[in-house]
């Protein structure tokens, strides 16, 4: 059984149609763990290593959007232009595994695996990312909230693959924070991304590792919009931030497992929400 190495997106589409059962391999940082430890038996593999288009990113200033190829490694998002335009993504990228993992791991991988602990996913959710997918029936854009449909479940159809992720460039503040029990290279026990659009006067917040999918705390967001001005130059009453944290926590749906407890995750995500909101005003 082969490793198929397409050279461009067209070839990739073709090869994936011929081998609908094949697995796509980009950084390998999730898939090879399955092979090494969990008895996964690879059969047909399609390598994305040579599909240059997937490793590129571009900015469309007219649309205020940045598009990042599915196979761009996280290391490329930590610094430079991507980090300047989407700082929350840079902050999330910095917490993905180790430097070695970040040199290989990709957004496409996080989206393919769709773990609630996927570090980049709260950022995609909070920013309202569009997932650009290509398949036998052509292209389509999927809103992130419709893309991730459950624990390790996404809405890709057979022979569809993630081509790129498109994110808005926001005027305002954005930040990401992740709780783990050591200071680096740690799987998240709770994470959050908060985006404050000072033009629109809205805040969005998305939570990781506290539910079966990434959770947008929409009730808390709505409450916040009603309770305080979020536009440029506004001030924040600390009591509002605290109440916001409390409301965000209520929207989380965490579980107890060997990594932490539901109570702690709920508490932690509330603290993160409060702190991120506070930071967005400082």
């Amino acid at each position, binding site marked *: 059984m082969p490793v198929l190495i397409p050279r461009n997106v067209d070839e990739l589409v073709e090869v994936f149609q011929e081998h609908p059962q094949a697995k796509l391999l980009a950084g390998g940082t999730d898939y090879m763990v399955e092979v090494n430890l969990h008895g996964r038996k690879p059969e047909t593999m399609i390598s994305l290593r040579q599909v240059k288009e997937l490793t590129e990113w571009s900015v469309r200033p007219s649309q205020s959007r940045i598009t990042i190829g599915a196979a761009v490694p996280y290391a490329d998002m930590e610094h430079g232009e991507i980090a300047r335009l989407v700082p929350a993504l840079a902050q999330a990228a910095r917490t993905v595994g180790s430097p070695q993992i970040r040199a290989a791991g990709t957004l496409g991988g996080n989206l393919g695996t769709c773990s609630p602990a996927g570090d980049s996913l709260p950022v995609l959710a909070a920013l309202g990312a569009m997932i650009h997918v290509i398949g036998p029936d052509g292209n389509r854009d999927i809103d992130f909230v419709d893309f991730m449909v459950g624990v390790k479940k996404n809405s890709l159809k057979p022979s569809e693959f993630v081509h790129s992720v498109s994110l808005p460039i926001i005027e305002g503040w954005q930040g990401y924070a992740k709780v783990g029990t050591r200071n680096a290279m740690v799987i998240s026990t709770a994470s959050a991304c908060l985006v404050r659009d000072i033009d629109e006067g809205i805040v969005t917040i998305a939570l990781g590792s506290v539910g079966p999918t990434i959770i947008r705390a929409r009730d808390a967001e709505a409450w916040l919009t009603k309770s305080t001005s979020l536009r440029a130059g506004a001030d924040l009453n600390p009591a509002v931030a605290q109440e916001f944290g409390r409301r965000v926590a209520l929207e989380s749906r965490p579980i107890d497992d060997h990594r932490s407890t539901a109570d702690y995750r709920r508490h932690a995500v509330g603290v993160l929400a409060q*702190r991120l909101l506070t930071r967005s005003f400082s």
Partner: protein
Amino acid sequence: MSSTVASTGTRHGTLGTSASRPDGVAKVQGGFAFSSDMWADNMLWGATLRSPHPYARITSIDVSGAYEIDGVSTVITAADVPGKLTYGLIMQDQPVFAAIGDTVRYSGEPVAAVAADHPETCQRALAAIKVIYEVLTPVTDPEDCISGVAEQIHPDGNIFRHQRIISGDTSIVGAIQVEGTYEIGMQDQAFLGLESALAVPDSGGHGLEMYVATQWLHEDRKQIADCLNMPEENIRLVLGGVGGAFGAREDISLQVHTALLAMKSGRPVRISYGREESFYGHVHRHPAKIWMKHHADTNGKIVKIEARMVFDGGAYCSTSPAVLVNGITHTQGPYKCENAIVDGWAVRTNNPPCGAMRGFGVVQACFAHESQMEKLAVAAGLSPVEIRLLNAMETGDRMITGQIMDSVAPVAQCIRETDAIPLPPPMSQDADLRTIPGGTGLTALPSNIKRGVGWGVSIKNLMYSEGFDDYSTARCRISEGVVTIKFATSEVGQGFTMLAQQIARTVLGVDDVFLDTIDTQVGSAGSTSASRQTWMSGGAVQAACRAALEQLFDHVATKNSMNRAELEIEGTDIVDRLTGQRVAVLAAIDGVDIDCTEEYHHPATEDMDENGQGNCHVAYAFVAHRAVVDVDLELGLVKVVQIATAQDVGRVLNPLSAMGQVEGGIAQGLGLAVMEEIIVKDGKVRNPSFTDYLLPTFLDAPTVEMVFIEEHEPKSPLGAKGIGEPPCISVTPAIANAIRQAVGRELPRVPIRPYDICL
């Protein structure tokens, strides 16, 4: 007498210098042969089938499916064990494989093993073996074993050992009393170099050669020989490169399985565990629950200690009885006290087997007594330093075992020197966020953080105890102008090979010292554990070198008409003190043929009686730790900022190596304090991976400021004490005490989890 060694200068490579590691170049270039790098022509891969259940009766095993897979050579089960069906260090109570009709007693217990042409073939073969289990309800609560309500899960019973210490006047009641119940989680040694062994059978099938990463070659060989029903002399064990040990290689893991597969298949077989299997394949640090009550007079002077300690030994004995004795005999810590009532239990449950890990029972006791000292300080209105200085043990003190402290005991000096180390500056409000709790997760700003300072001081016994003669052997050969040292001492990373060369260079006045293969072709060295090899194998190498030197002096005196009684080594020369005549050692050894093998034995110890009285330990070492931590009170995240430490080492034999032992031990103690725990629920390990069993990373490691207290230990052959274990013992409670100070909670359990702090 250590004057010959002590009086020599500081020629590079001799004792007291940071000599180079003989294995260093190979290690940095990737060429050092670890046991997992061993390879032989025609080699098969081995793998182990393990029980998924913590307690279950095996009703059948069908291995036929495995043989149907291409590339599978051999499958073995309990029915294929030709000799003793069990192994174990103290009691041989652990089956080589669980047999049909018998029970598995822990999740991960070996049931069968296969040998095949590829690791993946092995995995498929294991999947094809059908084992039918009658699943039973596991015994997981040690208290049920003590009370007797638990089902007896092994013919030897559920109690490994029950030992009391009743000492002095037990009727005393202190004006001040503090008490607490403390818990210590199950820590893993987590050496990086996973278990691995290569067994090569003799062509005639009568013996074998094995390359294995172990702490004690001769003990392994004895147990392998018993199980194979083979004379020990037919087995040669060679030390395969060892990637760390920390206690986890004291017990048999894959040795017998690998040997059996090789003997049955007639081909070389290598088993190399993966990380998950490693968590199942070796013993861990005992989780323990310890109640302590300290009685003190109004000044805070300890007058009596009451304690009850329960160690969960898991399914098989391993070293549980010895761990228990270490725990209870260290109840008092490094403090004066003669009156005590201690009740200690080590029990059998269906939890993972536990045994040796760096600190060996003392880690658990120390966490309890140092938590108590913090409470006692508050109750007596003293500072953490004052309460410890007030009670500091000294040489000559009578301990609760009745043993008189006859080691150098600079406890107060350790505390004072640690206290004199400057505290780190306060956290700056523009601190790099990487360095504050939460690290790269960017969870906090400096304004969210509170700092705490805490203390821990410990005492640790050195060498084996309770009458055990854990001697060591070394051989020194001078032949063809070359000095060669041989020993069976396991080099596990600590640097004994380097030390052996330093000793030989110092004693014999040569620069080049060759090291023979570390294997069973020389007498036992005992285990690389209990902080004992510098003392024991160092003593043996020194003795062998000195014996060789005596013969060399005989030869030189005769040949050069020098005064035999006046000869000594000065640098690289032999000097006649009377005449000043000199002969270069290199010239002197040319053409001589000397071969000396010596054993070193430590002073005898004795068993303890039913009241825990007896001279059961050989010697002791001491250390103080002061921890500075930053805590995010709302999220419960911790960053250890600085550890200050002063350690009683007798004498620094290799400065760089000593620093490495101290820093490495501290990192392990830090792990136990805030992140490392094997989580066991209903007898099953929930986190057997490095994703979920967290080890400190570079960003978690604190700055370490250290001082060595060098007061020569007269009992030690080199004047030095073992330094491996003390660094990891009291650092854990020091960190816990620092967190307690910042948080204002009792926090009676380690590792301290974020939710313990903030919920």
